[in-house]
């Protein structure tokens, strides 16, 4: 397998009151072309830092980041990012937000071609009816779809999703998960998704890589999800692989959290692994 996205022993720290703290330490990651990888971890474990490294918004202290065989030296449209809080420009309409990206990436196309291309992506995420609305007039799920459309419209080599559905209610989340899978099935882009929802990772990803609790977070062993696609959310709950993958991810995450607690002199949490969402735990740390 030739890695399309590759992180080699990447570390990144930030200065804090008690000296420099490494958020990520010795992170190694290989993603094949066309693969959908989900990185699952606690909030505050450095997920967004990892995403910013891949996007090129920040540089690693040590180690290297490569995409398509070339080192990442800065942000660029070859890596489409869907930010955690959508990052739509509030003074532009749905159409204009997407067009801004198209206009930049396909600068050489004629204006008509650019408009047609934008229109296509508005349609892809089912927002044609809302194309002239501003983000403030859209629901959270609709804003998220605009952000996805904007990232896809750049026709990036890699799509980076930073907790794309984190701010949505459970029902909207479910329907958008289905939509993301549909879009991914259609053009099989390489995707790195960061999430704190194990179920979401199992539903969407080919491989799940847990990120241990921070600081000094690192990636754990990858867990393959060999469930056939398209995956049906309802059927998935009874799939033996689903339960297996899910409990392995959660066990790793709880284990890393317990180690953290012990090293801090706190008692390990005694909860049944499969019944606990990592997020709920994080509240107590």
């Amino acid at each position, binding site marked *: 397998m030739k890695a399309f996205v590759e992180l080699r022993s990447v570390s990144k720290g930030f200065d804090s009151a008690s000296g420099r703290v490494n958020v990520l330490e010795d992170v190694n990651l290989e993603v094949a072309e066309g693969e959908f990888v989900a990185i699952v971890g606690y909030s505050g474990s450095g997920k967004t830092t990892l995403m910013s490294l891949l996007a090129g918004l920040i540089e690693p202290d040590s180690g290297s980041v490569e995409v398509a065989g070339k080192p990442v030296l800065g942000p660029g449209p070859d890596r489409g990012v869907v930010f955690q809080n959508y*990052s739509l420009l*509030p003074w532009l309409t749905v159409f204009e937000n997407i067009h801004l990206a198209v206009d930049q990436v396909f600068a050489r196309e004629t204006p008509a071609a650019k408009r047609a291309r934008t229109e296509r992506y508005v349609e892809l995420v089912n927002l044609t009816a809302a194309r002239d609305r501003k983000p403030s007039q859209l629901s959270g799920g609709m804003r998220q779809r605009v952000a996805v459309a904007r990232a896809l419209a750049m026709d990036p080599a890699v799509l980076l999703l930073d907790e794309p559905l984190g701010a949505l209610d459970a029902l909207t989340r479910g329907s958008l998960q289905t939509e993301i899978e549909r879009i991914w099935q259609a053009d099989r882009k390489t995707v790195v998704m960061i999430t704190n929802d194990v179920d979401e990772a199992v539903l969407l990803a080919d491989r799940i890589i847990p990120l241990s609790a921070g600081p000094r977070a690192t990636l754990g062993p990858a867990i393959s999800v060999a469930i056939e696609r398209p995956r049906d959310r309802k059927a998935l709950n009874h799939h033996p692989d689903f339960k297996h993958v899910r409990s392995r991810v959660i066990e790793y995450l709880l284990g890393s959290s317990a180690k953290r607690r012990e090293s801090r002199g706190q008692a390990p949490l005694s909860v049944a692994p499969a019944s606990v969402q990592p997020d709920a735990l994080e509240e107590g740390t």
Partner: protein
Amino acid sequence: MSKIASARWSKALFLPLLGISFVVGAWALTSSTWAPALPSPLQTWQVSKPYILEPFEKRGELDQGILRFTWYSLIRVAKGYSLAILIGTPLGLLLGVSKWFTSSFDPIIQILRPVSPLAWLPLGLVIFQKPEPAGIFTIAMCSMWPTVLNTALGVRSIPQDYLNVARVLQLSRRKTLFRVLLPAALPYMFTGFRLSLGIAWLVIVAAEMLTGAPGVGGFLWQEYNALIYEHIILCIITIGVVGFALDRVMGLIERRFKTG
């Protein structure tokens, strides 16, 4: 009339009128007791009547209807204020984007900011040798600062997310400025513009007083020297009403440009 409607009426009309009558009452009382030189409200109305009822009449260089004077003042303010915006906005943008620029120029701005118009005007006269440009210079120097500081604040308060979008898309500097920085900072900038306009109008009296230019402020000072004190009050009321109206208009424009 329902209870709610009458409550609204009393809030919108009755209570403000109550406040105004209170002040007019205090004024009448003052002029009839311990400050006999102060014209009474009635006297003020009678002496000012020709200036109000024929607001655009021109009887002589310094004897014109009150709205005509107001118009001269507004033109002067518009010139000084435009200059303030033209200089203040780019200055604010530079302060907002460049730490180097902020470190270099913020101290001097903080020192120049509290200087009174009465101090700038003589300097303007020295520089320009003529009263008209000196007045405009004074208005610009005094009213520029809210625009400068609010524009800088607006640029500094742009969420990192928007800048990340510009970076991921690799927008050019020009495009980043016009598509991201300016629209994001616009609400702050308009707050600055509104405050600047308020100050520009505040300064007009001082500028006209010292230069003797025809306008509300010049008229006020001349009538003081001519011992027609009723007109001083007429000018004060006019300046207040016009200032209030300008602020309201800017407030409406500001609301239109609010992005959210």
